[in-house]
């Protein structure tokens, strides 16, 4: 469990508005490439509203884009989460028909970039073929990518071979890594959510590309898709479960000697156990993880599944919250077996971009408070060392236990009361009137007590002095700022 993991800047997502170039009429498809399935590849048109974390009371930016989806069952259309995220109106087109069908999101999984849509009226879709899923395609085998990328309005098909199978970053959430398959077919904006087909079966969903490299498209392989479909069987998406362990490879002979390990390239050292995580209270830092579910962990943290060396987390990837996992560790020279019940670690969403959320905030006498998250971090420029450390340590050090929210003074709106406070924006709040702030709601309670104190003294981490607001002036200042800056709501305490 490392702190905020940001992706290669070069990864891009591939949904986009279509370009203005006249389409070329498609020629007859070769015999080995059945075109019957084209009709089940739909074009998805999304109007979206992206919230504005730097001005949290504003409506945000209205926009839209095009993506692809495909029918996988009765009134079930699979696409990417990023195609429909923050969507306000979703319309679906069947290949070769101008009619637009209103759709809605049934399930969305931002951590693996998948979503299931349904249309209001499925009647016209009933006769269309339904896609079935295959396995992870072999290296160097050929695949077809079907979708509605930029460059034209009509369906596009490209071909490529499987170049690499890897455990890699999913750029939509900026915080997750899962199995990916890299192919060399052209994947372009608009391809997102489209099926990647081999032998008539779907072997992946096209979802991202790499900006600084040619012919590198990434697809979400079927183990990830199947896991998502299984997860939502109970009617809602529970997301991935996590072990909540940090590890260090055990290559070094001296280190192995000190740990009294044989020279056989096995085991990794546990360096961090996330508080409240699946392994908290069971596994300790200093333990050596030897195997997961009976599969031996090598000194680089890899296990062998189906003859392939993969990251040991891949075992956990295929499980669900509530599932058990068997860990074998070495502690003080003795081998111990533990059965761990997996749970999701919701706190780690601190490091993921959030979608469909209304930014939370409080405006109090011209001071704007917001909880720290990656959306806010991306929208602001935070320089303060303490704030940046609180962010990085939030999960690994278990800061969330004491402070579920890191409340930040993000803005100081000019007003006679606050005109001297402009320099204090960008600091995290420690205490309000001597009480440590736990989360945004708590801050709101402390700022609106039953008995008004003479002053509100707000202590910020790393600031040279406390901020002081006389109670008697709060109401008038709040009113002035509300009018001057056109702030309809003084606070939003719920996502």
């Amino acid at each position, binding site marked *: 469990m490392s702190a905020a993991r940001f992706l290669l800047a070069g990864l891009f997502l591939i949904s986009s508005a279509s370009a203005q170039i006249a389409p070329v009429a498609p020629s007859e498809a070769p015999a080995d490439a059945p075109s019957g399935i084209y009709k089940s590849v739909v074009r998805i048109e999304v109007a979206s509203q992206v919230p504005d974390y730097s001005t949290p009371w504003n409506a945000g930016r209205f926009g839209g884009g095009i993506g692809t989806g495909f029918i996988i069952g009765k009134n079930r259309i699979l696409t990417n989460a990023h195609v429909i995220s923050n969507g306000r109106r979703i319309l679906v087109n069947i290949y070769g028909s101008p009619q637009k069908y209103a759709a809605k999101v049934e399930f969305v999984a931002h951590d693996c970039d998948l979503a299931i849509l349904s249309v209001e009226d499925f009647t016209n879709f009933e006769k269309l073929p339904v896609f079935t899923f295959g396995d992870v395609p072999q290296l160097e085998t050929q695949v077809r990518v079907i979708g509605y990328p930029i460059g034209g309005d009509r369906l596009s098909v490209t071909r490529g071979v499987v170049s690499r199978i890897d455990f890699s970053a999913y750029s939509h959430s900026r915080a997750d890594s899962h199995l990916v398959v890299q192919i060399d077919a052209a994947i372009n904006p608009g391809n997102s959510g489209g099926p990647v087909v081999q032998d008539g079966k779907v072997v992946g969903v096209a979802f991202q590309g790499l900006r600084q490299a040619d012919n590198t498209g990434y697809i979400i392989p079927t183990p990830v898709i199947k896991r998502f479909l299984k997860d939502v069987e109970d009617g809602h998406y529970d997301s991935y479960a996590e072990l909540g362990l940090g590890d260090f*490879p055990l*290559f070094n002979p001296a*280190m192995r000697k000190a740990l009294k390990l044989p020279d056989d390239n096995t085991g990794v050292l546990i360096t961090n156990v996330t508080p409240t995580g699946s392994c908290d209270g069971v596994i300790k830092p200093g333990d050596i993880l030897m195997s997961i579910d009976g599969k031996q962990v090598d000194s680089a943290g890899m296990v062998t599944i189906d003859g392939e060396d993969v990251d040991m987390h891949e075992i956990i990837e295929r499980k669900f919250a509530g599932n058990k996992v068997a860990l074998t560790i070495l502690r003080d020279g003795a081998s111990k077996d533990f059965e761990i019940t997996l749970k999701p670690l919701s706190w780690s969403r601190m490091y993921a971009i959030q979608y469909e959320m209304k930014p939370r905030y409080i405006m109090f006498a011209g001071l704007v408070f917001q909880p720290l998250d990656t959306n806010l971090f991306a929208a602001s420029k935070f320089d303060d060392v303490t704030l940046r450390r609180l962010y990085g340590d939030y999960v690994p050090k278990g800061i969330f236990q004491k402070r579920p929210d890191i409340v930040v003074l993000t803005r100081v709106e000019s007003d006679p009361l606050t005109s001297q406070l402009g320099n204090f924006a960008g600091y995290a709040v420690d205490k309000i009137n001597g009480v440590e702030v736990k989360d945004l709601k708590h801050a709101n309670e402390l700022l609106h007590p039953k008995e008004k104190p003479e002053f509100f003294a707000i202590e910020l981490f790393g600031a040279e002095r406390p901020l002081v607001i006389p109670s008697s002036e709060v109401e008038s200042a709040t009113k002035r700022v509300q009018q001057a800056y056109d702030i309809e709501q003084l606070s939003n305490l719920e996502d």
Partner: protein
Amino acid sequence: MKYSAPVLFALALTACEPPKQEAATPSAVPAASAPKPVEDRSALKQSVVRINSTLQSWNPSQPWEKNPPGQRRALAPIVGKNQVLTTGELVADATYLEFESTDGTRMLPAKVIAVDFEANLALLGPADDEKGAKFFEGTVPLELAVPPRIGDTVDILQVEENGMPLLTAGSLQSVDVITNFLEGQFFLTFEVKASMQSAASSFSLPVLHHGKLAGLLASYNAKDQLSDVTSTELLARFLQAAKTTPYAGFPSLGINTARTEDPSFRKWLKLTDDQGGLYISNVRKGGAAETAGIHKGDVLLSIGEHAIDRRGYYPHPTYGSLFWSHLVRGERSTGDVVSLGLLRDGKPLKLDVTLTRSDESKKLVPSYTFNQAPNYVVKGGLIFQELTQPLLEAFGEEWRSRAPLNLIDALENPEKYEARADRIVFLSAVIATPATIGYERLRNLVVKKVNGQEIRDMKSLAEAFKKGTDGLHSIEFEDENLTVQLDEATTSAVDKQLLQRGIPRLSRVK
């Protein structure tokens, strides 16, 4: 690092103009900007020398070696028998200093008598007294001027390549308590407006008032035509302090302050409208203020008989509003007792503070380390260094946001470490060797223990490595539950190889 930043040293004027043929005859036309008689100016040559300085700083990532050397020149006033005054910057990391007569005919190795990097002043003398006496024969030291007043005209003295003095008149625009070299070191400084021309390049220039030395020009902003000139008062105090060895330096209170303009904040502090006051936001450990019992949260109302206003200024009899720190650093000496008027919890309080000098070398993370070779240990390929601000600055111009967070934290919040360490010792990098297999990606980790011993500084690290256990050395890091090991036999072999491959020594511990 430092020397590659040209902004700081805007005075490095180029010297590429060809010598003007007729200008060499001094009886020609006097320059319009300098109304002084030409004879007078020629005489000034006897009161200044050039200084050539060769500088070499240490390589921040490979502390056993130095960066490529650089050169600087300065024009410096002779201020006493065989004594020359220049900026501290000129001698910072100097490996060779040399006097040069203004006509370029004679050279002489020089040495530093006293240097104050905070005040940016240095006093130099000849390395060899006998040769020095000969070199300085016939020179006339400059006397210190009566401090000029705002609006007075002062003359900036340059000497052209051909040896001719050049005087540029400027006016003393304002007097301010600012820094012209190191961050956060504020001293009384004249702001002189003058339009200077390119002459022989120079990092310091004498500034004259009625023919006497009134200041030392330390930086020139060509765009605004404004110069920072070290004040006469500071020169006088520095020259006085330089007479005693060891050099005592200027005192400080050891506090950080915040303004109290905000009316709500004033009400909360119970400050009345006729009061000024600075909020004391931090009291440095071991400083004069802490010793005297000043607390964070006290309000500083007066220093001696001077009331401090809400922005930190007090009225100076001749210079107008000056920043409070001048009352400590500029007007008092180490050991002086000063009475401070404070407000604590709304009640007035008087405290006497015995002023001390904050010794930079005693800080957890020193902010400058000129002329000091960095401490380090290389063990089996692991490179350990002591954290200093110059090391952090090596992360580039944006170092405050780019340097590793844990190291910046130690710089900004030393109180987290001060109880258990005198220096932050950290693993700065790993050379890939047979002993460091699997450790290649470790860096910027603060060392907590080695072989079970707490690490207080580089010396304790070197000693801890001497007592290996079972042929293994263990290294524990701060903030990480990670202990890495080095095999003594492999490490010794690797260390021998590193020496063979040109690392001159595997440690420097002072």
